[in-house]
């Protein structure tokens, strides 16, 4: 059962080869067995999963099943789920039980999905290694054969990526503000897509940086991601930045092939510091696309090198505003003080972790009187130049291929001493958020130590279809079949 993809499982459920309840029990048992080692879930929801599976079985029997009927998923603990604690992996939200459901998870419920639990993440989605969670780090199910050091799963959607990689779920929701879907996908050997800004509603997702945050799926294959995105996407009047557009058939698009497509190779993504095996994998990916019928074109995105610095002004600035609501007054944790200001300061000093505090302080500083023009306004102008770079090259090419991340997964404890070093993880993923364009990571190979490496496909605004088609072509050529050392077995219920 664990070896089936989401698409194969959906077909098997329709043929009644097994029931949704049997499938859910199998996955719940795997979560119970492996979560103590991975810490991929903050809050497993077995009762909810069993109710949803029973409803899926009734719908399947009646011939009224939605496209995801009975499919067990992990839900990043940044999506509000009605009646289920939603923490954003922060102490300050530890007691929060939303009385409403996010639009994205509402769509998944409508289509019959089963929620196994809320997955771990970096606190408020701020991080690239899942070590900033107030509920403890997530361990990557992959290990280096040479040593047993626990590796990070990437972040911020580290719990979602680890759960999918270890086969504790068939797919998971995630969010991506600077790479938080694509970088963990690369580190854990799974596929993930950040759609165009506006494609998925942000309503009911705990906000980090509102002009960058975008939800998307993580799953084992590109087609599985497409199936999930078909459900998650769609116009929502409750999000003022939701795009009022039809949702195309993404799964069909992923099977289109790449014959005749023009693929850009951005020269600014090549650097002397790139590990040779990542450069080699990139070249290999380009060869695969050429062999599949695409043509390759050298392109230039001259402001690429400023993407990260721009991000580390815009994202903290927006975060400092969004996180102002956590003041201990109306909901969440409160730490009393002798007066109102000291209650605020005590609550936020105790409730936020070190990385969140750093970013809120940076954001407060760059927005403060006298610095706004020099930092925030300038960053928004550079952001406009980054978008212009992409729109210029997309007049000539259909999609871009780059590496997803500058390294494979690293060990817990590495790169933890210097925040800037940690930020460099997102050097290849951040520009897509700055420009709002879609980006996908697909597992394409292993490094010399046996760890997965992803390649990234970037596309035009609202052209996820081409991005999925290119990703599927890379996936097919790569034939990535390696599995992590820690994963759910084949035992039947």
């Amino acid at each position: 059962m664990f070896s089936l993809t989401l698409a194969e499982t959906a077909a098997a459920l329709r043929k009644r080869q097994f029931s949704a309840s049997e499938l859910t029990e199998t996955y719940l048992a795997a979560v119970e067995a492996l979560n103590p080692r991975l810490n991929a879930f903050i809050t497993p929801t077995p009762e909810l999963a069993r109710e949803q599976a029973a409803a899926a079985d009734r719908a399947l029997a009646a011939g009224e099943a939605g496209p995801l009927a009975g499919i067990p998923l992990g839900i990043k603990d940044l999506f509000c789920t009605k009646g289920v604690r939603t923490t954003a992996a922060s102490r300050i939200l530890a007691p929060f039980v939303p009385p409403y459901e996010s639009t994205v998870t509402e769509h998944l419920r409508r289509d019959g999905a089963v929620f196994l639990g809320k997955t771990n993440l970096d606190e408020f989605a701020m991080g690239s290694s899942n070590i900033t969670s107030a509920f403890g780090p997530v361990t990557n199910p992959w290990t280096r054969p040479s040593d047993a050091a626990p590796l990070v799963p990437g972040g911020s959607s580290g719990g979602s990526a680890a759960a999918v990689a270890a086969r504790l779920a068939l797919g998971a929701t995630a969010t991506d503000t600077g790479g938080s879907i694509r970088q963990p996908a690369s580190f854990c050997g799974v596929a993930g897509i950040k759609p165009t800004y506006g494609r998925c509603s942000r309503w009911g997702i705990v906000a980090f940086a509102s002009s960058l945050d975008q939800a998307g799926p993580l799953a084992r294959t590109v087609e599985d991601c497409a199936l999930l995105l078909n459900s998650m996407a769609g116009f929502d009047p409750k999000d003022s930045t939701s795009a009022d557009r039809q949702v195309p058939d993404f799964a069909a698009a992923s099977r289109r092939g790449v014959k005749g497509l023009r693929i850009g190779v951005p020269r600014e993504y090549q650097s002397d510091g790139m590990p040779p095996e990542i450069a080699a994998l990139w070249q290999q990916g380009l060869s695969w696309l050429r062999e599949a019928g695409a043509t390759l074109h050298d392109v230039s995105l001259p402001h690429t090198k400023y993407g990260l610095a721009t991000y580390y002004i815009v994202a903290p600035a927006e975060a400092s505003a969004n996180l102002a609501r956590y003041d201990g007054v109306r909901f969440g944790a409160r730490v009393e003080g002798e007066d109102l200001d000291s209650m605020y300061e005590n609550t936020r000093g105790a409730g936020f972790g070190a990385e969140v505090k750093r970013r809120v302080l940076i954001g407060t500083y760059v927005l403060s009187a006298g610095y706004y023009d020099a930092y925030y306004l300038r960053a928004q102008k550079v952001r406009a130049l980054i978008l212009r770079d992409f729109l210029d090259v997309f007049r000539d090419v259909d999609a871009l291929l780059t590496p997803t991340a500058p390294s494979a997964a690293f060990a817990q404890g590495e790169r933890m001493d210097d925040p800037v070093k940690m930020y460099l993880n997102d050097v290849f993923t951040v520009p897509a958020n700055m420009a709002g364009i879609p980006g996908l990571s697909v597992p394409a190979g292993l490094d010399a130590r046996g760890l997965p490496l992803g390649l990234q496909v970037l596309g035009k605004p609202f052209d996820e279809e081409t991005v999925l088609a290119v990703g599927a072509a890379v996936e097919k050529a790569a034939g990535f079949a390696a599995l992590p050392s820690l994963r759910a077995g084949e035992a039947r219920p």
Partner: protein
Amino acid sequence: MALEPETVRRIARLARIRISEDELPRLLGELNGILGWIEQLQEVNVDGVEPLTGGADMALRLRDDVVTDGGIPEEVLVNAPDRAGAFYAVPKVVE
């Protein structure tokens, strides 16, 4: 331009985050590292460039000014730290 300890204390007060004196030296070093690194944006020529404020260069929609939800006081109150009948009860926040 490096931050002084007093500036960090000031922005921590603005952000309403309690920072202990023990935390200050480490935080000062980290914030200065980040701000020093983002200084590179000063070299970009942004003359005549309109700032991009949103994710996809889109105009915000307006919706009709009508009530679309409500009548669910128990759900609204579920996260209230305290209540008085059907009302939220919170510490006095206007001094």
